[in-house]
Every structure is written in structure tokens, then in C-alpha cells.
């Protein structure tokens, strides 16, 4: 019954995640020390790899763009009070739509490829998300279970499509490559600094998606409905807000967001669709949304962090061969663990530190209510 002390915003938004990341690096550093390398050298290699060069920045931002899309896919649905664990599958199936339209239009101009594949990716992602949403809204099947299952279905379905249906002649489970004139422009075409990085025009879609989400959630009536349902379903019913409608529409938007990853990764960089192209980005999106507290600004920062971890991690494995690439995955996993699953670990400590200094609610509300 200890009353939960409210913490100042900057503590929950900045300090707590920073402490979590720090702790993850300390433990990761210990692991590096155990295998006989200098943790500081390793961390520097990681940092420099991510932010030291224009190319590093390019890779980091490219990965971050993927995380923005998959993070938003989790966050929007989380605002409606549900977990969308299906970003992985939604992005995967969206790849089918994106690549088919891209391959269809790739003899024209990249502008058509960009917009055509974007629309197709968003539609396919939406479609894949709407099915579990409908099952939840109308049949009460728990969306966490169904979205997880739909990841597996997506995986099997896409393997079949890539191996049997849209396979490039002579290739093994992948489509043909997008023709030269249909390829999306890289940012390095305009800014030399990005060198050989895959950062492409979809990056701006990522920024737009963040702004779109902010406006959607806080500046539209639909966003109001989403937040009401998420915070208090009974109040939503009282207010005449249809839970069925909100669940389906928020999942549709989330699926479209996850789908955008296909444009960035498959159309923009790989220029074809290969088996398992999503490569866990959908799952990491969950950690990104958590760490970003489902707020577009937070998600932007969390996506940047994870982008840096991905890019820096690869540089680290390259620079210090004694550090196995598996260890890099361990460090990434530690960050996910401490920021996502154990994100509230420091709260009691911080509450004790800040409790005396901040002004809590004028009347501890729990106390007031029990007196009713």
C-alpha cells in the first residue's frame, strides 16, 4: 500500500532509460573483460563505429528508420491498450506487396516505384494486422497470442511464396532484383558524407511517420478515442466509443507502419525480397516502443540508440576480432532486457531519492478515494 510517488518527467523520460542503458553497458563491458579485451576499447569501437564517420551515421540512421517503423507499429496499438507483437510478420508480408509493385513498375521511374511500393506495403501490412485485430474485437481471441501466431504464419507463407511463386529464375528463394532506373535514391547521391551507407529516401518517410503519429494520437478525434480505450475501456463504452472500431483501425495503422519497413529495407537497400528479410527488426520494435514510452520523440531517440547498437556492434566485431559477433548480440540483448523488460527497475530507488524534493499530487488521490 506504499503510495506510488510521482517522479518528475525528466527523470522517467531521460534519467531512467539512461541508467538502464548504462547498466546494460556495464554488464556487457564485464562480459568483454572476461574474454580478455579492454571494455573501454570495445565500447569506443562501438561508439565510433556508429557515430564516428559519415558512413557510420548513414548506417545508424538507416537501421534507426527500420526501428522507427516497427516501434511505431507497437506504440500506436499500445496507446489503444493492446500489445501488437506482430510487427515482424506484418513487415514481412508487406514486403510481398512492396516488391511486387516495385518489380512491376521498375522500368518506369523511381518515383513510381517509391509511391507504388509504399502504398502496396502499407496495404499488405494493414491487411495482415487487421485479421488478428478482427479476431480480438469480434471474437475475443487474445491479440498477443494471435499476432505471435501470425508471425509464424507469415514466415511459412513468405517462404512458400519466395521459393515457389515469385522466385527469380535460377535463384534460390528470392525475387529478381529491381532494375537500375527503378531503384530508390540513396542520401549519399546528394550528400557525399554518407559514403556507401544504405540510407535512402525512405528515411524522410520515417520522420513523417513520427510526425503523423504525434498528430494522430494527440491532435485528432481518432487519437482521442484510441487513448480513451487504452486508458479505460469502460469509459470508452460509456462515451460511445466503439472498441471494435478502434481496435481494428489502430491495428490497421500499425500494420501500415510496420509495412513501411519493407520499402526501406527490401525495396530501398536489398532491392529484392529474400527469405527472412525482416531479421528481428519487428521484435526489437517492441523494445523501441517501450523504451520510447510510446511517444514519437522517445521512439525517435530509442530507434537511434538501437540503430547505433546495430551499426556499432558490427564495427566492434570487425575492429576487435577477439570479440565474437555473438557477444555483440549479447550487448544488444542486455540493452533490450534492461530498457524493455526491466525498465522500471530503478523506479523504487529514484522514488526514494526524489520523493522528498518534488511536489506530489495535492491530495494523494488513492487516499482520497478510499475514504469515499
Amino acid at each position: 500500500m506504499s503510495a506510488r510517488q510521482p517522479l518528475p518527467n525528466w527523470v522517467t523520460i531521460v534519467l531512467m532509460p539512461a541508467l538502464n542503458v548504462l547498466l546494460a553497458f556495464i554488464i556487457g563491458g564485464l562480459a568483454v573483460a572476461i574474454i580478455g579485451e579492454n571494455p573501454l576499447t570495445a565500447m569506443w569501437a562501438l561508439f565510433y563505429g556508429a557515430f564516428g564517420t559519415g558512413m557510420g551515421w548513414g548506417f545508424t540512421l538507416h537501421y534507426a528508420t527500420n526501428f522507427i517503423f516497427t516501434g511505431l507499429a507497437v506504440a500506436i496499438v499500445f496507446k489503444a491498450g493492446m500489445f501488437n507483437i506482430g510487427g515482424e510478420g506484418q513487415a514481412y508480408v508487406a514486403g510481398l506487396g512492396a516488391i511486387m509493385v516495385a518489380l512491376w513498375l521498375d522500368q518506369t521511374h523511381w518515383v513510381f516505384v517509391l509511391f507504388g511500393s509504399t502504398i502496396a506495403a502499407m496495404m499488405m501490412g494493414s491487411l495482415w494486422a487487421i485479421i488478428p485485430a478482427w479476431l480480438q474485437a469480434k471474437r475475443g481471441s487474445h491479440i498477443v497470442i494471435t499476432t505471435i501466431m501470425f508471425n509464424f504464419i507469415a514466415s511459412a507463407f513468405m517462404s512458400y511464396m519466395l521459393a515457389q511463386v515469385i522466385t527469380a529464375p535460377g535463384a534460390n528463394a528470392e525475387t529478381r532484383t529491381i532494375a537500375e532506373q527503378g531503384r530508390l535514391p540513396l542520401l549519399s547521391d546528394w550528400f557525399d558524407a554518407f559514403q556507401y551507407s544504405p540510407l535512402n529516401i525512405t528515411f524522410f518517410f520515417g520522420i513523417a511517420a513520427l510526425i503523423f503519429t504525434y498528430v494522430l494520437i494527440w491532435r485528432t478525434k481518432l487519437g482521442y478515442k484510441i487513448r480513451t480505450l487504452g486508458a479505460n475501456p469502460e469509459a470508452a463504452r460509456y462515451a460511445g466509443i466503439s472498441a471494435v472500431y478502434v481496435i481494428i483501425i489502430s491495428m490497421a495503422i500499425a500494420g501500415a507502419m510496420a509495412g513501411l519497413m519493407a520499402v526501406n529495407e527490401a525495396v530501398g537497400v536489398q532491392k529484392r525480397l529474400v527469405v527472412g528479410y525482416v531479421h528481428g527488426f519487428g521484435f526489437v520494435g517492441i523494445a523501441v516502443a517501450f523504451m520510447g514510452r510510446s511517444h514519437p520523440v522517445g521512439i525517435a531517440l530509442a530507434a537511434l540508440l538501437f540503430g547505433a547498437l546495430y551499426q556499432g556492434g558490427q564495427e566492434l566485431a570487425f575492429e576487435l576480432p577477439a570479440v565474437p559477433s555473438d557477444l555483440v548480440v549479447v550487448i544488444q540483448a542486455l540493452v533490450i532486457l534492461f530498457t524493455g523488460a526491466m525498465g522500471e527497475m530503478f523506479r523504487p530507488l529514484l522514488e526514494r531519492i526524489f520523493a522528498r524534493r518534488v511536489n506530489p499530487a495535492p491530495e494523494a488521490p488513492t487516499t482520497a478515494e478510499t475514504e469515499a
Partner: protein
Amino acid sequence: MVEHQTTNAQQPSQAAGSEFAIDLKRVSKAFGPVQANKDIDLAVKRNSIHGIVGENGAGKSTLMSILYGFYTADSGEIWVNGQLVKIKDSSHALELGIGMVHQHFMLVENFTVLENIILGAEGEYLLASSMAKAREELTRLATDYGLNVDPDALIEDLSVGQEQRVEILKALYRGADVLILDEPTGVLTPTEADQLFRILEQLRDEGKTIILITHKLREIMAVTDTVSVMRQGEMVGTLATKDTSPEQLAELMVGRRVLLRVDKTPAEPKDVVLDVKGLSVTDDIGVPRVKDVSFNVRAGEIVGIAGVAGNGQSDLLRAISGMEAPLLGEIRVNGELVRFHGDDSASDARKMGVAHVPEDRLKMGLVTAFEEWENSILGYHESEKYGTGMFLSPKMAIAEAEKRIEMFDIRPRNPRLKTANFSGGNQQKIVLAREMDRDLDVLIVGQPTRGVDIGAIEFIHKHIIELRDKGIAVLLVSVELDEIRALSDRVLVMFDGEIVTELSPDASEREFGLSMAGVDPKEGA
């Protein structure tokens, strides 16, 4: 007061111990800058029933939580039976003989009475022996204090009054000498409440000490020996009950004179606005909750629905407001049928002029995580007044919220403050302002003053009567009989999903009591 000043100097003697079961001295507790308890002195005589009254947020619950070990006081002394103690937690409080009966029962529904009573005090590894011991003890307690409950009955089969007895038995079984009861009559019929008071008196006569927290002055007058009044974290007075009056207590609680009666002129009802015919409603699992109910409400009258909580009133409100589909029957507003077509039907009822102040503002009427202005548009959020087309304009909504804050005197006057940080009374005003400040034909109100302090009750009642006088049809559901009788022009009594009778608000308390228990007073006499 003089006696226990002297005990400080002496060795805590047996004589001093027998005078006061509980003696709090200058107890203070602050939550941040909010002083919940300021230098509280409270001496509870052994073998007495001691009432504590005060408005919401006056600090009653905080004080009891300190005594029960939930909170630790910042300063001050706690003397139990003449011993200076530091209560660490609730199990320590129990060791000292202090037991608490919570407002919301903490019982396992599908366990028997006996299993619930030994829960947390199972004793040994094997249940059988402690069960046998408990059964014996239970029989003794039942005969000593008139607390009769079948030890083998499942909790879910018991009435609310019986469940409460189980809670009391639980505390006694654990050896409580001092029983704290927090708002014990909120869920009881008048008859059950009377039975509870008889039990409390018997407990006192058998040597127990009772602390009764309540906001119902009538109960204080009926059962306590001494009463302490708290206001804004301070103890403003301790009086012998026989020397005081409800008016005096109310004045002490609020700090000014309060009208306990509602002033209203006779109603001038006009055309039927709300017409309910043959309505039946079942709950989620198909249990019938409302059974073939018909009634109407005319423009300019207040129809009250009296009844003990859980007799179908909530389901009736949900059906009329469009939140739940009726099984049978029809609801008409101004002759137009209210249709249920999906989970957003409540918005259709609103468009037809039905405003709904729900029974439970925290569960239904508000989103506590929202800022005040966001709750000020809940249910009306689609209106063009709060943004063009699909967009929501906080600026426009805040402007209107500010206007309502002024009109309804909502404090603090900050539409950007999180709703959870408003007091209960002010939260209720947010809901009332939202539902009343618009074009409406029917107002359905559930428990308008639940958990609301006396000052705000007066204000809310005045507003409801004002709406009636403007020609609005008001349907009022409340478990507070006093409130129903003070506000209503006609009263329907609900029992087990049916409207058993219609009474005049001036009918006797006995008539109300009988019909609320399902007995027709005309026959049952």
C-alpha cells in the same frame, strides 16, 4: 485530556492502560507538501464505540492507516493499552490487537467461510487440525457476539451483510481487541445496517473497542458513544455523542453552516420524456439483472430509484444510456426509440438528449490519466466545438473546460491538471459539468454524491433541482436513501431486478426498509 497527560510521567501503569485502548499523541503525517495529519490527538476509551467523521481528504483514512501500520507517522506517539509502540506493519498491528474491517471486502469468493477465516493464519502444515480449531473458535465467537454465519457456506452464496460478518469474524479470530471499521454500511440495507449496529454494541459490551469511520451522521448518532471530527488533516473536536447533534457535527466537518435539507418547490411535471416498457437486461454471463421493468419520467420531475446496491440499478442505467443491449422491451426518449446496434450506441443515446452521470466516476465516467479538459469532452468529443472534422483542438476544448471550471467551481482551476489529482468531489463536478452544461432532455444520474464531501453534496443537489425546474426529466439512482428522499418527486424501489413498489418520498423509513428488502409494505405489515 488531563488524565493522559499524567500517564507520560508515570510508568505506564495498568490503570492508565485500561482507560484508553488507543491513545494517539500529536501524530503528523505529510505526503510531500500536503499535511494529511497535523498534530492529531485521539484517545479512544476501552469498551466504547468511537466514531470518526470528516469530509473526503480530511485525513481519516491516513490516520487509520497509521494505526494499522500501512503508513508510518512522521512524528507523534502511538500508545496502545498504555504501551508506547511503533507499529511497523499490519501484522504487527494485529499482534497488538488492532484489527481492520475494510470497506471493500477481502474475501476469496469460492472459498468457504471457514477457509477465509483461517486464511493467513493457517498455523501448521496440515490444514485439518487448524480447521478444527478454527471451527470451535468460530462457534464460540458466534455465540458470544451474535455473529451467526454458516462456517461451511461459500462466500459467493452469502449476502453482503453476511460477508461483512465474515470480515469481522476474521479480525476477531486473529485476536483483535480494537476493531476499525471503514465505512461499513455503504453496501448494506437499512435493516442490515441496524443488525450491524446491534453486533457492534454487543462487541462493545463484551469488552471490545470499536472505531467507526463514516460520513453518515445518522449512524454516528445511532451507535457511537464518542465522536471525533476531523477537518483538513486536523482534529477539530471530540464530543460525547449524546451531547451533540447532526447539525453541529456537519458544521464542525465543513467549518461553516450546512443545509442538510434540500430546498425545493413541488414538481410541475409535463409530458413523458423517458418511457421504459417491459425492459429486461441480462449481464455478460446471461444472468437476468433487470426483469420486465416499466416506468416513465416526465419533463420537470425527478424520479428516484431506491434499492440496495446490486439489485439491477446499474444494469438499468447501462441499458437506458445505450451501453448495454436490452434483452427485451423498449426505451423511448421523446417518443423515439433508443436502438442498440453496437458498442458505440451510447453516443446515439447522447444525440437523443440523454445525459448520463455514471454511478462509478472512476471506472466509467472519467479517464483518470487524462488532463481535466480531456475528460470535459468525453462522450461529446466528436462535436465540431472541439475541433473541425477529424482534428481535435485542445485550444477550443480547454476554453470550454475553463468556462465550466468557473461555472461549477471545480478546484484547482487548472484544465491541464491530471484528473487523478483532483479530489473525489471535484472529479464528480467534472462529470456533472460535462453532462449538465448542454442541451439535454433526460439526465440519468447514478450515485451523484458517492465519495463526495458535504459541501459539494449541497452544490450537486442544488444543480440537479435546478435542471428539474428547467423542465428536464431526471432519473436518479442512489443507494443513499436520504438522498433519494430529499431529491425525488416519486420513488421507485428496486429489488432483485424488479420495481417492487412506488412510494412517495415522504413514506416512512420502515416502508422503505421493507420494500428495499423485497417485501411489499402494504402486504407485509
